[in-house]
């Protein structure tokens, strides 16, 4: 696809930031639902009326970009978003305008959808066959078909619009490691209990799942000429699970996923929700200056920078409450303090996890403006 000068410059800045060669901190956009309120749409209309929703998304980012440069995009437009989330976490997802009020955020239902005996089924059948059988339990297959049709019809136009507006999309695909997928399917409480009682079996199951999952993700990324994608770390955070569980079921698969993305020319963004302090040094195992840690404000980036040096770039981590409840001054103070702590090199400023749906526009502007003006 034909790019343009600004797009190329921004992509170059992104790659330079990963190599710690950036002249200023770069910025990344990260709000899947944030544009709706500011552009006068309900979240229901924003995700279901995909043409209008995508236009609102681009227009919103352009409004931000008029105030301070938005260098790259870390969360794509959330068209029919409840469907891919359901597939990522193998959970039912309640959607606005269907099970939830029109202006509610989509929400994952925490329910045991996969039974404990299904571990044996996966080992016997393989992941692809099990998944085919399992998906209808969490997702209406007609909705999945609609999502595929929407992606085929509007995906290329959206990709073109992103390039025409000079925004490199650095996260085209969220890879859900097997730990996270099983946690969604079993429900967190059940799955964490399983991890104590059936650790070896779950490891065997994950070994069956991983090759199928990663191959699917890589195929999708190749088809969309992706720059990179997320390797998700949500419930597998160091603050969530014991070291034995993390060492056995979480990290090996996250690392393998990162390595696979790199082998195929994609830049991995480790999307790390919650607290990863305990194990942050393990990211030294990734090739030097090859990937990004995208944290949400709970991981201590100052400490992480001391331990990791210039081995890995950071993307983060302005906390959601600050963007919703704070003022431009408090946001700016946070960003300055963060940059004072970790330095501008190898640093991309964005919200911690997603920019909240009710983030104040002026706060998001302050976040970016402070980053690009930082001396």
């Amino acid at each position, binding site marked *: 696809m034909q790019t343009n000068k600004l797009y190329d410059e921004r992509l170059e800045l992104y790659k330079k930031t990963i190599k710690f060669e950036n002249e200023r901190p770069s910025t990344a956009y990260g709000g899947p639902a944030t544009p709706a309120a500011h552009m006068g749409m309900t979240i229901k209309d924003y995700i279901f009326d995909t043409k209008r929703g995508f236009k609102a998304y681009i227009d919103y980012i352009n409004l931000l970009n008029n105030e301070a440069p938005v260098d790259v995009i870390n969360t794509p437009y959330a068209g029919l978003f409840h469907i891919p989330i359901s597939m990522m976490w193998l959970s039912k997802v*309640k959607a606005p305008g269907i099970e939830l*009020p029109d202006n*509610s*955020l989509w*929400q994952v*239902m*925490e329910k045991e959808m996969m039974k404990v005996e299904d571990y044996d089924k996966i080992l016997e059948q393989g992941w692809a066959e099990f998944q085919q059988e399992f998906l209808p339990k969490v997702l209406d297959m007609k909705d999945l078909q609609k999502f595929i049709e929407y992606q085929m019809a509007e995906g290329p136009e959206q990709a073109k619009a992103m390039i025409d507006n000079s925004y490199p999309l650095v996260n085209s695909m969220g890879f859900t490691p097997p730990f996270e997928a099983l946690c969604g399917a079993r429900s*967190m*409480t059940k799955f*964490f*209990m399983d*991890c*104590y*009682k059936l650790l070896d079996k779950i490891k065997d199951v994950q070994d069956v799942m991983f090759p199928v999952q990663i191959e699917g993700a890589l195929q999708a990324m190749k088809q969309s000429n992706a720059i990179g994608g997320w390797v998700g770390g949500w419930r597998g955070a*160091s*603050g*969530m*699970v*014991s070291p034995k*569980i993390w060492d056995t079921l979480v990290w090996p698969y996250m690392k393998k996923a990162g390595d696979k993305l790199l082998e195929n020319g994609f830049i991995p963004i480790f999307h790390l929700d919650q607290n990863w302090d*305990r194990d942050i040094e393990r990211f030294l195992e990734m090739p030097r200056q090859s990937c990004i840690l995208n944290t949400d404000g709970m991981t201590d980036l100052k400490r992480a920078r001391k331990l990791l040096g210039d081995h890995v770039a950071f993307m983060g981590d302005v*906390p*959601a*409450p*600050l963007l*919703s*409840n*704070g003022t431009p001054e408090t946001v700016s103070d946070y960003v300055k303090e963060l940059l004072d702590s970790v330095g501008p090199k190898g640093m991309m400023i964005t919200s911690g996890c997603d920019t*909240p*749906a*009710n*983030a104040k526009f002026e706060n998001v502007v302050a976040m970016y403006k402070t980053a690009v003006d930082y001396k």
Partner: protein
Amino acid sequence: MSIAEMLANLEDEAVMAEVKKQISDGVEPMKIFEACQEGMNIVGKKFQDGEYFVSDLMMSSAIFKDVSDVIKPLLGTEGEATIGKVVLGTVEGDIHDIGKDLVHAMLSAGNFEVIDVGIDAPVDAFVNALKENPDAKVLALSCLLTTCYDSLKATVEAVKEAGLTDVKIMIGGGPVDQSVVDFSGADTYGETAQDAVFIAKELM
């Protein structure tokens, strides 16, 4: 190894076997229950010290619940004595239950009686639960979505408007910090399920 140590080491089967053995040996049920609570206190301390993590809290809570189900029917009126009563729920518009359930488990293990009004709970559910339980001195509100800050605030206001001014309100959840306390008018917030126990004790 004592029951408390077994529970603190998350040895679920060993704890249950020892509890059943002590019951059949005629050990006073209250003593067995107190040993389980002591185990939970050790777990809480380990969590606070960064030695244990959320999964460990969940595992210990599950063990505690299982043994409580066995012991509590044997306690009679003695088992009804608690530190106090807490009304708990996730605010309207938010269906997240994991954090709330974990707080429920930790409060129960900390010898609080918990009135759980569930998830996506309208303000009336909290107000009614407090009116029905006038001895409940603490209200614990869970909120995982920034878009539900308004629900938090509405719940706090409704409790005050209902004249329940002696009820202390603590809030918690991923996007909750002091700024949300200031916004909502709640009294305080906790960062972890374990914090909820300490705070509830202070607020009683």
